[in-house]
């Protein structure tokens, strides 16, 4: 796959069809992957494997402000973000050449470390199995055992918007129901839920990684950076601030969140932020009909439309217990 991508990128660059290619580059370690804008001279360094987990679509907002056409590799989850961004007119479609690529699920080095797999030096990807080369010998694992939570619940289907597809289209069923944990929390008592979230959110260091990585968070100036908003802050100065930030962050992407799971991936404190987003998705689906952000360019987002006979808050709130 990696070879195929390199070849195709080289072709596109040399034919002059695109001027730059957005992909991934590896650092000192195989999992040390950074998004990178390639040109003809460094396209050989483009990589694609289980650790290429950053989404690229958000970079298009900045990249399309520059001159020239940029090609971008989109994994299925990323292609939904791509469409959502396009729908919100966040980048110039004319300047983008979108290449859809398949994904077999990504692996996070932190998860592996927690499993006791350390000193990783390389990886050999298979469809079902993955071999991790480490300083202490090779470790072979079932992919389903090691892939990240977000990928285990991924409904990996390509969004219909791309310029070309590379590699075979993979349709797969999610390994587990993605609302499982949300439902589990809903069944708890308010006290238990409060304790759960206090434990999680109190670890927040307000680094804004969840916000800055989110493909739905593309405001020119975030309300949390705006001194005039009255809620601007740089630190979780009180437990209220922690809750406030995460409620508002999730609310502002409600109906636009594609459930790509990047927020939880980047959290340095391991807070399961995607659960907040999924709660909104679940409520939206059950109250206003199934909706998937980024699935198409036409349908209005759930919070941008209404029905005269929508349910009242009282019909929904408190029904989980």
């Amino acid at each position, binding site marked *: 796959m990696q070879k195929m991508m390199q070849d195709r990128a080289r072709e596109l660059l040399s034919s002059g069809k695109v001027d730059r290619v957005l992909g991934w580059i590896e650092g000192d370690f195989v999992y040390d992957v950074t998004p990178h804008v390639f040109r003809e001279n460094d396209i050989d360094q483009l990589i694609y494997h289980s650790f290429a987990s950053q989404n690229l679509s958000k970079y298009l907002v900045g990249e399309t402000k520059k001159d020239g056409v940029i090609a971008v590799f989109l994994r299925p989850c990323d292609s939904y973000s791509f469409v959502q961004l396009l729908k919100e007119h966040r980048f110039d479609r004319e300047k983008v050449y979108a290449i859809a690529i398949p994904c077999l699920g990504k692996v996070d080095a932190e998860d592996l470390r927690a499993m006791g797999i350390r000193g990783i030096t390389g990886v050999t990807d298979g469809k079902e199995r993955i071999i991790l080369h480490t300083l202490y010998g090779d470790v072979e694992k079932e992919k389903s055992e090691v892939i990240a939570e977000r990928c285990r619940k991924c409904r990996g289907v390509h969004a219909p918007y791309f310029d070309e597809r590379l590699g075979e289209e993979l349709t797969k069923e999610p390994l587990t129901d993605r609302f499982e944990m949300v439902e589990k929390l809903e069944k708890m008592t308010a006290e238990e839920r409060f304790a759960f979230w206090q434990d999680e959110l109190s670890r927040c260091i307000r680094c804004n990684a969840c916000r800055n990585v989110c493909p739905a968070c593309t405001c020119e100036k975030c309300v949390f950076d705006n001194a005039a908003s009255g809620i601007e802050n740089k630190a979780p100065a009180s437990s*209220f601030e922690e809750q406030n930030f995460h409620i*508002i962050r999730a609310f502002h992407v409600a109906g636009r969140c594609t459930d790509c799971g990047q927020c939880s991936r980047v959290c340095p404190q391991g807070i399961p932020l995607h659960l907040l987003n999924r709660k909104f998705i679940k409520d939206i689906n059950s109250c206003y009909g199934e909706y998937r952000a980024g699935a198409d360019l036409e349908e209005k987002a759930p919070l941008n439309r209404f029905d005269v006979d*929508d349910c009242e*808050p009282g019909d929904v709130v408190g029904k*989980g217990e």
Partner: protein
Amino acid sequence: MQVNEEKFEPTIVAFCCNWCSYAGADLSGTNRLQYPANVKIIRVPCSCRVNPMFILRAFQRGADGVILCGCHPGDCHYTTGNYFTRRRMTLLFSMLEFLGIEKERTRLEWVSAAEGAKFAATMNDFVATVTKLGKNRRLEDLRCKK
């Protein structure tokens, strides 16, 4: 402990739409209908003007309950504002509950300019509910209490 509970006087913030419930509150006053003085009314041009941060900030600043009153669905002065309010608040209140905030602390009610009695009854009921719940501990900001 029991003694304190009895003395507890909640602070209630009511966001009232200028075109209906604010007038409703006025009417309940001219009709000499009683509702508790705990309710602090904030007039807004439309229930739709209230964004989630308003609600959260009210709690931060010491509210024990927040109620949002707007025109009945279909009666919005701006045609559709309250429909959007309904969707937003449904999601927000559900999220607050998901985080373990007592669901009784937030409420959305439709009160028209003619419903002075409904306004008073709603407020009486809401104050009583929140009084029973006690002080807002889960969404408070201790810095404000210093």
